[in-house]
């Protein structure tokens, strides 16, 4: 049990294999491991990025408590549909955004990596909640099963802290992702950052 414990807080047996596949993908790197497009034209890139940012299709990947706040975000009060992201697809082949909402553990890690690999590029990952960011309330000595942060497995674009984060925080995360894709935040009144932020 002690040798297991030593490796717990860093990497686990299956997750090690997953990390080796991504060759050091970590939270510091911003580039993903996807291949860049063969031909790049600035204007068409800008147009395509604008379209992608405004119609992100998330994958239904709610694992635990944060999934409920993700569902609330898709409902009438908080309404992700305003930002184009309400079409939750069950299949990874049809989605381009993976919102990891909840705790990932050693049994789930290979499934998560398989789903990420099945998503076609360009693909984005949002780590929602403390558990997906860094293990959350389970990053304690007694833990033997929880992967401490989904960025040990796949490259992450946006981190949303909270336990669980409010639906408004998830919307802000999507707006930040849009800013990352297009390079700027849309000058709409509801997208303005509050004063002092």
């Amino acid at each position, binding site marked *: 049990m002690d040798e297991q414990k030593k490796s717990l807080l860093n990497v686990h047996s299956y997750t090690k294999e997953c990390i080796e596949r991504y060759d050091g993908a970590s939270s510091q790197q911003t580039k993903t491991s996807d291949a860049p497009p063969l031909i790049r034209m600035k204007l068409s890139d800008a147009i395509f990025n604008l379209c992608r940012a405004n119609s992100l299709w998330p994958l239904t990947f709610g694992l635990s*408590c944060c999934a409920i706040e993700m569902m609330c975000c898709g409902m009438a009060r908080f309404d992700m549909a305003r930002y184009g992201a309400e079409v939750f697809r069950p299949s990874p082949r049809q989605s381009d955004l993976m919102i990891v909402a909840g705790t990932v553990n050693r049994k789930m890690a290979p499934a998560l990596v398989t789903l990420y690999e099945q998503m076609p590029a360009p693909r984005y990952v949002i780590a929602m909640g403390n558990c997906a960011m860094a293990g959350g309330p389970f990053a304690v000595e007694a833990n033997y099963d929880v992967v401490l942060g989904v960025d040990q497995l796949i490259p992450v674009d946006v981190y949303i802290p909270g336990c669980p984060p409010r639906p408004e925080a998830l919307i802000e995360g999507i707006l930040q992702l849009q800013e990352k894709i297009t390079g700027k935040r849309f000058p709409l009144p509801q997208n303005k950052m509050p004063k002092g932020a």
Partner: protein
Amino acid sequence: MSMNVEVLEDDKHHRYVLNMGPQHPSTHGVLRVLLELEGEYAMNLLPVLGYGHRCHEKIAEFKPAKSFMPNTARMDYLGALIYNHGFAQLLERACGIEVPERVEYIRVITSELNRIQSHLLWYGAYLLDLGAFTPIMYAFDDREHILDILEDVTGSRLTYCYFRVGGVSKDIDDKFVTSTRAFVKRLRGRFPMYEDLVNGNVILQNRLIDIGELTPQTCARYGVTGPLLRGTGVAYDIRRAEPYSIYSKFDFEIPTETKGDCMASFLVRFRELEQSLRIIEQALDSLPEGPIMAAKVPKKLKIPAGDYNSSVEAPRGELSYYLVSDGSDVPYRLKVRTPSYSNLSIVPEVCQGMLISDVVSAMGSLDLVIPEIDR
């Protein structure tokens, strides 16, 4: 209609093993079910658990018992206050702490609001599985009102950690009372809309009636409790059978049905919403003044040696905490018996020979929350 197709022993090579989950829109969490299919009929079902295991019982052996309260909310996030209640009650009984009366009333009112919120979410999500996209919008709208009321007093929307050993963390004020009364009136006015929209719908009736029939004997062999057991005709509710807190003071019914199929548990849960509203009204009418914390709760709460049990009625069934203590403030062993664990274990027997779409319907009526199964 569920039909038990004869097992064709010679033709087993026609069978196809289909993997449902762990990522699936209808399994309500990370549950994986291996279905051995004969055409569209599921001959064998094998649930595979463990995709949401988070080592709660091991964590309980490393922290002082009082500090485990936030973890109780993460097990079932939809009934978090009720999980808090069971755990606070466990420690209060073990250490002989007497709780003031106002605290009991606050606990009952917030627990019943939590139960209503959980049933509304189940209602919306279940109908979403069956293909109806509208009821979930209305259910979540009502649910947001409850979340606003509870957020003012507890500070969270979902995973509450509001109860403490000996009391609650913050007192309720007049705003809470008026907004709760307004909500009770509003939800009662919405019931006719829910019934018109959903309960009489012919598609719902065809998909729910006669699917997944349970009997009281099956429930006893598997340990099934909650609305599933009440749908078979057994009026067993921990709030009535082993009254805890002040539930013995309130007048409420225990709705039961007789058939034991999916429609029976659906109607039982729907009627429980009205009973919870009755309890809330009675509690608000007789809310006493007083302190919100017991007089002497030691900072380091040493639990006398021995074993202790505490059972409460969660929205899904009977929740029992079992604590073994060796005299210190850190538990020696804590076991949480969650209702969805026993409720899910009936699936290999009851869902055998059903169409896949009926399997989805039966599993939705079990009202599962997977993190409480995997703990």
